[in-house]
C-alpha cells in the first residue's frame, strides 16, 4: 500500500440494507492520475463514488483524502471543499437559470470571485450565450455540461465522475476525454466510471474492473490494448456466469 497516495480506500465494506455491495475494496489514486472504473450494473461503482464523495459512510474500512479520513464528521466540510462529484442526476435547479445555478454553488463552495469563475466555466463548457436560460429549457447534453461545470466550480482536487461518457456523441466524448486529460495534467486525481471500454481506456492513465464488491482487475493504460482489457472483462463475466 502506497502510503503517499492522495486518495486511499482501505478495505471498504458497504451494505445496503442487508446486501453487501462492497467487500474489502481497496484503492489508491495519485494526484495527476485518472482512473477509469468499469464493471457491470449493480457492481457498486456508483456506491464507491458516493463513498469517496462522503455522501455515504462505509460499514467497515476507511477512505482518506490527502491523509485525512473521510469518515470523521468534523473533517467532512474541509474534505468536501476539495471534492467535485458529477452524478447521474444533474443536481441542478430546473427553474433557475444556468447562471443562477452555478453562482449558487460557487457561493456555497466559498469560491473567490464567483462571477468571474462562472463566466470562465461557461466559456469552457461552451454554454456562452445560454447562461440566462432556465435549466429546464436546456437539452440533456447541455444539462450534462452545466452539471460538469457545477462539479468543477470550486476547482476540486479530487474529481469523481459517474458515467460521464454515457449519452455523449463522439465529438462531445472527445472533448470530455480532453478535459479529463487536462485535469490530470493540472494535478487533479480523477476517478470516473464507464461502460464504454474504449472511451475509458483512451481517457485514463489506469483502469480497474469492479467485480464482486472489490477491484478484480487493475492495470496501467500504457501498453494496454482494448482487446486485452475486453478479454479480462469477459473472463470475469464468464467466471461468475
Amino acid at each position, binding site marked *: 500500500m502506497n502510503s503517499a497516495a492522495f486518495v486511499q480506500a482501505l478495505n471498504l465494506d458497504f451494505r445496503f440494507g442487508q446486501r453487501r455491495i462492497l467487500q474489502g475494496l481497496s484503492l489508491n489514486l495519485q494526484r495527476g492520475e485518472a482512473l477509469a472504473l468499469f464493471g457491470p450494473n449493480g457492481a457498486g461503482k456508483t456506491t464507491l463514488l458516493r463513498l469517496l464523495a462522503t455522501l455515504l459512510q462505509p460499514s467497515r474500512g476507511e477512505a482518506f483524502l490527502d491523509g485525512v479520513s473521510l469518515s470523521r464528521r468534523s473533517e467532512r466540510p*474541509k474534505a*468536501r471543499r476539495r471534492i467535485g462529484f458529477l452524478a447521474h442526476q444533474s*443536481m441542478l*435547479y430546473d*427553474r433557475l437559470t444556468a447562471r*443562477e445555478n452555478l453562482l449558487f454553488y460557487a457561493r456555497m463552495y466559498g469560491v473567490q470571485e464567483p462571477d468571474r*469563475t462562472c463566466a470562465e466555466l461557461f466559456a469552457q463548457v461552451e454554454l456562452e450565450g445560454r447562461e440566462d436560460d432556465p435549466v429546464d429549457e436546456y437539452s440533456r447534453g447541455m444539462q450534462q455540461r452545466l452539471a460538469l461545470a457545477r462539479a468543477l466550480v470550486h476547482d476540486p482536487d479530487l474529481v469523481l465522475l459517474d458515467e460521464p461518457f454515457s449519452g455523449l456523441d463522439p465529438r462531445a466524448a472527445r472533448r470530455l476525454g480532453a478535459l479529463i486529460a487536462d485535469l490530470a495534467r493540472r494535478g487533479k486525481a480523477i476517478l470516473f466510471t464507464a461502460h464504454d471500454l474504449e472511451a475509458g481506456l483512451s481517457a485514463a492513465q489506469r483502469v480497474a474492473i469492479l467485480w464482486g464488491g472489490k477491484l478484480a482487475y487493475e492495470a496501467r493504460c500504457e501498453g494496454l490494448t482494448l482487446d486485452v482489457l475486453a478479454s479480462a472483462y469477459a473472463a470475469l463475466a464468464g467466471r461468475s456466469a
Partner: protein
Amino acid sequence: MCWRAPTPRSPDEAPEGHALRAHSASLTICWKDLRQELRTRESFTAAFFFSLLLLIVFSFSFDFQSLGLGFEDVGAGILWITLTFSAILSLQNSFLIEREKNCLAGLSLCPCDPSAIFLGKFLANSLFVLVVQTLVLPISSLLFGYDLLRVLPGLCLVVTVNVVGFSALGTLFAAISVRTRKSELLLPLLLLPAATPIVIWGVKATRLCLAGRPLESYGYLVALSACFGVIFTVAGVLLFDFVMEE
C-alpha cells in the same frame, strides 16, 4: 474545439480553503429558494388558493352569523386551521424541489455544516408562509367581516411567532418525510400531533386578540410559542446532519 484550461488558483491560496461560514450558507440557500419562488410563484399560488378555498369551506361549515355568533368565537380556529394546512403545503414543496434532480445530494456535497442548510430552509419556509398570510388575513377580514386593523399589531405578533415555531419543527419533519415514499401523507401525520402546542397556543392567543383583549392577557402564550420555536430550532440544528445522510 479543444478544451481550454480554466484559470488556475493562485499558488498561495490554501488548498483546504475554508468551510463556508454557517450564516453565509444559510442566507445563500434562503436567497436561492426566494429566487426560485419569485420566478415560478408555484408554492405561493398553491398555498394562497388553498387557503382561500379553506376559508370558503369554513364559511359554509360554520354559518356563525346565522347562529348569532361573532367571528371572535370561531375565527381563531378557522384562521389557524387554514394557516396550518397551507403551511404544510409550503413545507412539502420546499423539499420536493430539492428532491428533483437529487439537489439534496448537491446540498450535502457543499462544504458547509448541515445545520446551515436547515437554517436556510427554515428561514425561507417561515418567510413564504408569512407572505401568504399577509394576503390571506386581509381577505379573511373581508369575507368574515371583522375589523383587522383594530387587532393588527397583536395578530401580526401572534401569527409571526407561531409561524416561526411551526416552521422550525415543520422544516425538520419535511426533510425527513421527503426521503420516504408517500411523503405527502407522512408530513401531516408527523407534524400535526407534534405541533399541537403551537396550534393550542396560537388559537388561544388569536382568540383573545380578536376579542380585543390587551397584549398582557395573551403575551404569555406568545412567549410559550417562542420557546417552542427556540427548542425545535435547536433540535433541528443538532439533528439535521443525521437527516441529510443517505
